[in-house]
């Protein structure tokens, strides 16, 4: 085995959406970092849908950006359709989504990595972690080279023991066209990690020249397209539409006719698939009463004829695939360019992680992305960022960054993963966030910019811009709190035009804005200063004022749970010594080893009674003696 002379601070295994954020974060924090990938031409490749964002996922991207990550900037530079979802609903559940030019997306990310100081980019397959004694000291590659490092971040995606299924045929692969990673997960198993199997799938890529778009409904993006990143001024890429198509009863009959050759229903696939992203055969079987399913035909780029039919993933044999896609109106003559397939891969149950994403079993080893049982580029990137940050903080001898559930979707996600583990691919939903009204896209910078800046991931220029925005919001909030209506003839005219004659003289602008029938733009007509307030400031002032009651209610809930969330459970606590816990609860706690009482309370099967017992046990010192 040849040994490379350099000792890295951080080695990141895998250059997908998690690995890129991890490597950029640690190198930007000043750590010597190496990013290893099986294929340098597949960096930040969108292996499935060519899009970023969506409900809760858009929230994640904004948070990544606020912390100084790259994903938002990358999609802003390469996005070809931007939409805000849920515009008819409240600000907390509005979310950004964009179609990407898939090739441009990966090329830009590669360029950013290449230009990053402190970062080496290498191609190679990691077959094992390298230990000296019991200490993790780097990685070994199939090519016979050993790299030394202080920390390792593993982001293997679907590559560990990846197995691709098309019908009853299957073959090893990390993604269509790429080799799987063999050896690493076996080593993790030997080291004592619980390693499981998950499944996911992707639809066929279709030749757009064989689709009759006149039969489909076009869906355009927003005009003007709004960027993801707080640092992007505007979107400059050309914008193009998606198209909506539907399956029909005949499509479903075709699907049913192929079920006997489905690896899913014949029991060949053992991995668990995502319920929220079912294959088309899954939808047809589970919801037989639905006579049509919707699909968005999404472009894969400006410069390609390949398109992606969303929601139409399948692992049925190729002949069924052809017949099925051709049964859809508008797709009668469609040609498949790449077949749909399912892929099974190894993941490591995330309850074996601290909420810093470091493994509980091996110090200085971090896991991020699909290896933790998640799905989605945004989920992966969020974890990658945190893992990279925490590997760097470890090298610097500093405390890890842990985001609270009340602070960020990233915090909710990691807490869910390390507390509950996962049995199916985990996807973010806004309903997973109990403090949803506080965790909005629009205030991601207000929540997290300070942290990103302190870590050195947000540039001074970016931070100054933010600080100015924050100052203006504060000033405007203060100003509308003390500015009162004088009922000048102009103001009276505006009030009556808006049907607001009942507003008393002397009411503050804040009181006015609290009303559901008064918008900031109405305010602007009443008052000179308001007219000059920039749009981002207006939005913040309006949201924070209008939803103050609800926001306060959530803040109160956070306060109530704070005691539980901040009560730490010592790592060395022997649950067997807490006699009054039931065997079931003891087993669960011993397996999960929660870091805080709050985490313990979220483990299914851990009853409120068990929590009170645990909290009493923590207060008394007796458990220490009992533990011996």
């Amino acid at each position, binding site marked *: 085995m040849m040994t490379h002379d350099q000792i890295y601070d951080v080695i990141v295994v895998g250059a997908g959406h998690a690995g890129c954020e991890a490597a950029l974060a640690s190198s930007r924090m000043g750590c010597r970092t190496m990013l290893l990938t099986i294929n340098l031409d597949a960096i930040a490749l969108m292996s499935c*849908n060519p899009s970023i964002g*969506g*409900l*809760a996922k858009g929230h994640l991207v904004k948070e990544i950006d606020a912390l100084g990550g790259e994903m938002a900037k990358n999609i802003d530079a390469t996005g070809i359709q931007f939409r805000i*979802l*849920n515009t008819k*609903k*409240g600000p*907390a*559940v509005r979310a950004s*989504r964009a179609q990407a030019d898939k090739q441009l997306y990966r090329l830009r990310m590669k360029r950013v990595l290449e230009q990053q100081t402190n970062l080496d980019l290498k191609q190679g397959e990691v077959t094992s972690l390298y230990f000296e004694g019991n200490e993790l000291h780097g990685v070994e590659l199939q090519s016979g080279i050993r790299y030394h490092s202080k920390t390792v971040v593993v982001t293997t995606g679907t590559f560990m023991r990846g197995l691709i299924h098309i019908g009853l045929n299957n073959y090893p692969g990390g993604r269509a066209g790429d080799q799987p990673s063999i050896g690493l997960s076996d080593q993790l198993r030997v080291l004592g990690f619980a390693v499981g199997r998950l499944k996911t799938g992707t639809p066929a890529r279709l030749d757009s020249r064989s689709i009759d778009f006149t039969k489909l409904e076009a869906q355009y993006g927003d005009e003007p397209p709004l960027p993801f990143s707080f640092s992007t001024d505007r979107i400059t890429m050309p914008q193009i539409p998606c198209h909506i198509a539907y399956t029909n009863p005949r499509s479903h009959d075709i699907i049913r006719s192929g079920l006997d050759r489905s690896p899913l229903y014949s029991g060949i696939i053992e991995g668990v698939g*995502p*319920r*929220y*992203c*079912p294959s088309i055969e899954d*939808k047809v079987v*589970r*919801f037989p009463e*639905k006579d*049509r*399913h*919707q*699909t*968005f035909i999404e472009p894969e780029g400006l410069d390609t004829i390949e398109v992606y039919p*969303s*929601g139409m993933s399948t692992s049925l044999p190729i002949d069924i695939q052809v017949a099925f896609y051709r049964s859809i109106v508008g797709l009668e003559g469609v040609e498949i360019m790449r077949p749909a397939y399912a892929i099974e891969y190894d993941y490591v149950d995330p309850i074996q992680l601290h909420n810093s994403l470091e493994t509980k079993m091996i110090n200085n080893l971090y896991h991020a992305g699909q290896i933790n049982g998640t799905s989605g580029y945004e989920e992966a990137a969020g974890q990658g960022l945190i893992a990279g940050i925490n590997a760097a903080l470890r090298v610097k001898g500093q405390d890890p960054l842990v985001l609270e559930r009340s602070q960020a979707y990233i915090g909710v996600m990691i807490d869910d993963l390390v507390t*509950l583990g996962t049995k199916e691919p985990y996807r973010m*939903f*806004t*309903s*997973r966030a*109990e403090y*949803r*009204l506080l965790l909005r896209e629009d205030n991601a910078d207000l929540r997290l910019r300070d942290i990103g800046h302190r870590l050195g991931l947000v540039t001074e220029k970016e931070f100054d811009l933010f600080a100015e925005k924050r100052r203006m919001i504060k000033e405007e909030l203060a100003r509308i709190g003390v500015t009162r209506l004088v009922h000048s003839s102009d103001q009276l005219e505006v009030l009556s035009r808006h049907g607001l004659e009942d507003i008393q003289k002397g009411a503050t602008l804040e009181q006015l804005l609290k009303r*559901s029938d008064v918008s900031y733009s109405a305010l602007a007509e009443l008052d000179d200063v308001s007219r000059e307030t920039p749009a981002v400031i207006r939005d913040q002032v309006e949201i924070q004022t209008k*939803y103050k009651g*609800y926001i306060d*209610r*959530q803040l109160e809930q956070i306060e109530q749970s704070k005691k539980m969330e901040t009560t730490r459970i010592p790592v060395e606590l022997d649950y067997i010594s807490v*006699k*009054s816990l*039931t065997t*079931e*609860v003891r087993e669960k706690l011993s397996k999960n080893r929660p870091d805080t009482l709050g985490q313990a309370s*979220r483990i*299914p099967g851990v*009853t*409120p*009674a*068990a929590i009170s*017992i645990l909290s*009493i*046990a923590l207060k*008394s010192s*007796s458990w220490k003696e009992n533990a011996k």
Partner: protein
Amino acid sequence: MYIRDTIAAVSTPPGNGGIGIIRVSGDLAAVVGNTVFKPVYDGGLVSHRFSFGTICDDANGETVDEAMAVYMRAPRSYTREDVLELHCHGGWLVVERVLALVLSCGVRLADPGEFTRRAFLNGRIDLIQAEAVMDIIASKSESALQLAQKQREGALSRRIEDVRGCLLRALALVEAYIDFPDDDLGETDVAAISSSVEDAQCIITGLLTTFEEGRITRDGVSVLIVGKPNVGKSSLLNRLLKENRAIVTHIPGTTRDIIEETVNFEGLSVRLLDTAGIRSTDDLVELEGISRALEKIPLADLVLAVFDSSCEFSPEDQLIFDALADSRTIAVLNKADLPMRLVLPDENRFVTMVRIAALSGDGIDLLRHTVCSHFLHSTASDSREFVALSKARHRDALISAEQFLQQFTCGLRDRNLELLALDLRDALQAVGTVTGQTATDEVLDLIFSSFCIGK
């Protein structure tokens, strides 16, 4: 603090009885059994089998008593811990000696209610059921016992589960519309959401209306007897008690303090309070008695205002009338055997009027029945299906849930879904505190099982 040591206590009431039971719970239960109990047949204690033998004090080789013993290995026991029961003769001295022997094996004397607390902490019963067990033990009447038994069996828990089910369904709908805007779910189905919430509200309202009756059934009611002196209040008390509890004389003002007795009327536990006659007087002791009687009036669940129907309405009757302004009162017209000369100025003030003759006992049964039916008006309480809230804790939780649901309903047409979701979540949280449950992943499970979602 609750350490899982082994506890023991006498589980039968204090005093002499036919049988006395010492219950032991904890890891040491089997050790205790094998130490103090010597079965007649070899083979030791078999779980869940009664065996006959003797209880011996090894220290002096003395036989303390002959006894039956049953050992129940965890988790199939009342506390879900290892449990041992020793059934010996019921003399208090024997029971005490057996207990002392058990305690000498390194076992602690149990705190009141500790066995049930352990059953709850070990997850065998939920909060409602744990509370119900306490109620069963403390039941003062047949109907109170029935109510407690139903709660222990989980009847109320099931009803609360129904409420949670409705709320979870509504929340799942709301969350689906929030999280899957691009999926083909169609327009927000407000009707389906609100109908689930209405179902929940309906059950909650129903349960809340049972609270008063539930409380009365559980705790019984207090019935205060007032009237001017010498109208026969004490005779009435004695009649209702079927014994001579109060001293009855023809001298007005005989009863000076309040006499309190508990009786059972048709299954309802009634605390009867007989008071000093109300009149103008200079007697300091009697005055004190009168003021005590007046103080009690607003605290009573029901007042029996006794009048002498053979006399005309007097200024002293007026005094009573004034004191009763806000009370629920039955007018008891005593001395029905004499000619009727009383004319009450405002009959509508009373719930009803009953004529009795306390001396002969005429009309007493009717009065008993009138009191009962005043409280237990619902025929539902007789049926096996009757589920009632009987605890303030349950009521408060449901009231707070109801308030959140009212906010929800008010905002249904004009407020954003995510704000409605907050109301639903808070309501669910409140309902969950009744049974000690909280919602976790249930909402997502429901979404995926009811909608075809996924792009």
